[in-house]
């Protein structure tokens, strides 16, 4: 606990070193990412926890390559890369299902872009849809489905991007508590079976504790890593577990200082 920027050279799937980003607005510069260093091992599930508006989404946009960073190093499989473009899958709070495509056509977007949908991709898509409870809705349009179902489809689409690293940016943020709990369960199951490396951005302490191996806590904007917490609780976890409650206290304390800074 509290080991800042712990890294295991030679063993990291994705690592970020001293990522910096500021936006210039009306002539003045606004620092969003002050200094972000973190690393994720192959198959690890980590969460990035921070007060809202701290720049978590900007961090993901930088990693993906949609936003140009001012400084810092990104490495994937211990090789320095320009950005994660093409190496990572990205899922947002908005499901971004295309309204003109059926669910099946939507989830097959990845294979379609990277060179044609084959029978293999189709059957994999149907299998995953069955698994998340979307069987029978392949031919439906997104507008016909509930938010939860749409988000499940978005999750399947993200998996079918066939990338080792998944960046999930508050993927369940817009869902009600019940649906969110179902989604967390589904995500955990898929992660265990597919052994993906997952980075989850959230502002929900319980979500982070329920799902992840390690949690990075960010400071209020401009964001830096305030601390790192390992969650050594066997899964499935319960919010009533003693160690769970303990860690929740620790995390809330860390966040509290940052929230006060925001409102100071």
């Amino acid at each position, binding site marked *: 606990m509290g080991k800042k920027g712990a890294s295991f050279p030679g063993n990291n799937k994705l690592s970020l070193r001293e990522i910096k980003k500021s936006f210039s607005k009306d002539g003045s510069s606004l620092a969003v990412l002050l200094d972000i260093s973190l690393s994720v091992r192959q198959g690890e599930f980590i969460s990035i926890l921070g007060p809202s508006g701290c720049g978590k989404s900007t961090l993901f946009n930088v990693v*993906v*390559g*949609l936003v140009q960073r001012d400084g810092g190093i990104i490495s994937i499989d211990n090789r320095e890369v320009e950005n994660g*473009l*093409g190496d*990572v*899958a*990205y899922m*947002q709070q*908005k499901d*971004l299902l*295309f*309204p*003109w*495509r059926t669910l099946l056509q939507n989830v097959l*977007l*990845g294979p*379609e*872009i*990277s060179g044609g949908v084959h029978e293999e991709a189709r059957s994999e898509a149907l299998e995953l849809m069955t698994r998340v409870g979307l069987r029978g809705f392949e031919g439906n*349009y997104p*507008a*016909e489905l509930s938010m939860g179902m749409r988000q499940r489809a978005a999750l399947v689409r993200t998996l079918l*991007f066939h990338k080792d690293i998944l960046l999930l940016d508050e993927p369940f943020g817009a869902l009600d508590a019940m649906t969110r709990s179902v989604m967390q369960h589904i995500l955990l199951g898929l992660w265990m079976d597919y052994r993906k490396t997952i980075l989850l951005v959230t502002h929900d302490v319980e979500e982070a504790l329920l799902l992840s191996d390690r949690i990075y806590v960010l400071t209020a904007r401009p964001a830096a890593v305030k601390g790192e917490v390992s969650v050594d609780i066997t899964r499935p976890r319960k919010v009533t577990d003693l160690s769970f409650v303990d860690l929740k206290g620790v995390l809330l304390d860390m966040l509290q200082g940052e929230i006060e800074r925001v409102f100071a």
Partner: protein
Amino acid sequence: MTRRILYPSILLVLFVLFWELMVWQFQVPHYILPAPSRIIRTLTVQQSLLLHHTFVTLEEIIVGFLLAFVVGVGLAFLMFQFPVLEKTFYPIVIGSQTIPVFAIAPLLVLWFGYGLSSKVVMAALIVFFPIVVNTLDGLKGADPDEVNLLRILKANRWQILWKVRVPSALPFIFSGCKIGISVSTIGAIIGEWVGSKEGLGYLMLHANAQLQISLIFASLIYLTILGVGLFYLVVLMERRAMPWKRFSEIR
């Protein structure tokens, strides 16, 4: 649904009855205002004449519309892909709208003759504008997050255009088409007025000169049916092209 048709129909029937009554009551001469019954008689007696001229106008409209559609959508795509073309053409396209088609109709007849082509050009000129502007707006209006989703997948610009921008633009393109088809009759009729040998506009002018006022009304009825029919044809194609729209409307 039935009330949507029922209420205006009732109003229309009442209006026609009132009209018939007034014409009889005040003995209005038929060369000023013919009674609806006289117009109905003209519709049956002159049916083949009316149909012939209707098909002439229909052909002008359809060819003109298709020409405007191809050129309009094409230009919008080019302007979208190459900003320099947008900067060059867009102000000219807007500026050209300040010239009334009426004003250049005689020139077009002079250049393209009394036949089909001058009316086609006239209809196309009038249809062109809403299609270009709407298509361009539609292409630009795609959700940036949806575009980014494809960028993350390393999609090339054609894939982004074809898989996100075009489907996003479809509702806009159809809006342009609906406006375009509604005004297309204006172009064709003006063209026929200025110089032609056939078509509903020609027939009306001809009937007017001979004080066959009921034939003017009969032509107007055909023109209305033609316009409404074409509009609903576009609506039908819109539904076919965008089956998903049905569901977004329910919600």
